[in-house]
């Protein structure tokens, strides 16, 4: 369709594109949560291994968890895990709209139900685990 002269193609930086707007930066933070989910999986896997190795190994694992580095790592994991949860729940109405007759369930209702479910499941888990 170039009637006169060659069109100009503007390059998009594959390394710096997300620095262009806060919207893109928030997306990258959301994506990077996977690194911390992976780290958490690693922590659980190591814990499982120590559990299988016997009482002493498990106690050492607990010591590592409660040491400063262990606590810092877990706080970091917790922060990114919460960001993941919130970003996941907030987009659920888009991916799974609920139509009732001619109306759609408001997004806020679907999101609210997820946050409520999150709260209930968390409390239940902590209760069953004997935290209180």
């Amino acid at each position, binding site marked *: 369709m170039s009637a006169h002269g060659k069109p100009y193609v503007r390059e998009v930086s594959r390394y710096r594109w*997300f620095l262009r707007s806060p919207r893109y930066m928030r997306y990258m933070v959301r*994506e*990077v949560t*996977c690194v911390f989910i992976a780290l958490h999986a690693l922590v659980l896997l190591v814990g*499982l291994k120590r559990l299988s190795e016997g009482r002493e190994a498990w106690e050492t694992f607990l010591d590592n968890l409660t040491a400063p580095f262990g606590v810092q790592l877990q706080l970091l994991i917790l922060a990114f895990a919460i960001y993941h949860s919130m970003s996941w729940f907030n987009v659920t109405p888009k991916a799974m709209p609920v139509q009732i007759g001619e109306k759609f369930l408001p997004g806020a209702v679907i999101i609210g139900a997820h946050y409520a479910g999150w709260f209930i499941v968390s409390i239940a888990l902590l209760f069953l*685990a004997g935290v209180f």
Partner: protein
Amino acid sequence: MAKSNKPVVWGLFAAGGTVTAFLTPALVLLTLLPAFGVMPEVMSYDNLRAFVSHWFGKLVVFGILFLMLWHAAHRLRVTLHDFGVRADGFVAVAVYLAAAAGTLATGYFLLRI
């Protein structure tokens, strides 16, 4: 245009994302609270071994770890592309192999309890 096979890994990513969204923060609290003086009963060696010895406990632990690993693997593949890495074939093999290794390790340790 051929239909993609990405649904397989995306399905695991979506299932894992949902499970981790609901469970991960509470799970982290279980391992974090001891440092603040609150020891969940399940975290004692005897209680946790009892839970994992049971077939139901094994199922729960395996299910959660499996979904966490494959969720993180697929998202990491996409994230590396977002950071400019252009080697999707290699990256895909690497992340899914890691998830598979983690899955096998989980199964192995569970069977030893």
